[in-house]
Structures are given as C-alpha cells and as structure tokens.
C-alpha cells in the first residue's frame, strides 16, 4: 500500500445470489466447456474435491459475478470470470485475486478486492468490495 500514498480510492460494490440446484447437474465430464469459461483449474480442483461441489461452485460463481458487477460500475476495465480466482483461506475466509495476464502491474497495484460468501441449503450469496486507487 506504500504506492498508494498519493492516490485517492474509488469504491464500488457488487452482489450476486444463485440457487445451488443450478450447479447440481453440472459435471466435469459433460460441462467441461462451461466450467472452464467460469472457473480456473485451481478452483475446479478445489470444488470437485468437496463432497458437495455444487455449493462450492455456486459460491464462487456468486463471488466472481459480484466482483464483475463492482468492476463494471467502476468503469476502469472489463473483467471476465476466468480473470478472477477465488482462493480458499481457512478461518480468514475466501480471498479473490486477479490472474488475467492482460492486466498491467500498475493496474493490479491499484486494485484491492474484498469478498464475502454465504450459503443456505438452497442458495449462495456473495458481495464484493473493489477499491481502485486513482492518482490525485
């Protein structure tokens, strides 16, 4: 954050909610193209290691959609699902990073993302806060 001493933050939020049942019929074998349009290999490895992959897939989808919505209203760049990776961090909760190779170091240095994901038996929801540090 040292580089942001002479910058001012622009804040944006996004939210998304989906029914988990929409992911229950999705499998690696029959929906490979769809899954790879949304998730990274690390995310797929993590989700399909779980007893209930649908819940993990749904939560991650919501988080990515919330981040995309937040970026959309910031109007700084267009970001897609596979430009974002949701990392699972025990106790501290999930963390989002930008992995798209097209983004410059300067851009990545200016962006901070915070997410929260929650589930019920039927649905997942996520909100995202994106901070973009502009030059003063």
């Amino acid at each position, binding site marked *: 954050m040292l580089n942001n001493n002479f910058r001012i933050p622009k804040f944006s939020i996004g939210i*998304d909610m*989906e029914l988990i049942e*929409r992911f229950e019929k999705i499998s690696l074998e029959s*929906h490979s*193209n*769809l899954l790879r*349009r*949304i998730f990274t290999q690390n995310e797929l490895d993590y989700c399909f290691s779980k007893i209930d992959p649908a819940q993990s897939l749904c939560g991650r*989808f919501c988080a990515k*959609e919330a981040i995309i919505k937040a970026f959309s209203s910031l109007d700084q760049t*267009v970001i*897609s*699902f596979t430009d974002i990776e949701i990392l699972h961090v025990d106790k501290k909760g999930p963390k989002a990073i930008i992995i798209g190779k097209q983004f410059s170091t300067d851009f990545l240095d200016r962006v901070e993302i915070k997410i929260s994901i929650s589930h019920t038996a039927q649905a997942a929801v996520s909100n995202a806060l994106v901070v973009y540090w502009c030059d003063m």
Partner: protein
Amino acid sequence: MHEEKIKKIFAQAFEIPEEEVHDDIAYNSYQPWDSLKHLQLVSMLEEELGIEFEMDDIIDMSSYKKVREIVLKYLT
C-alpha cells in the same frame, strides 16, 4: 440451415419450444436469461457448432437477434 440450428440450441438452453424463440427475447427483459444462463448458452453454441467466441461478442449477445447475427458471423 444454420439459423434453424441456432434456434434449436437457443430453445434447448432455455428449455422452451422452438416456436417461442423470437428476435425480441432480450437479456434485459427475459427473466430466465441471467448471467449463468448466458454462459450456458454460449457453451452450448460453441460445443454444438464447433466455434469459439471472442469475449466482445459474448458481451454483445444481448438478444436472440444479436445471438443469431454473431453466430452466423462465425459460421460464414
């Protein structure tokens, strides 16, 4: 022939009869067409027609009419 196939895939994606597919069905006004359904539609079109869309085209698919126009661009 391509147009019939596009309509069939669209109907399958939204689980509606082909007769209900028309040009005015739009992302902003047709409730079942949300972001997940959009990606499912894109994946089905790519798999069944053997094409791969550019990201800008995926974003531009805002109605059935636009979907058809964009897909035909890849097929002709």
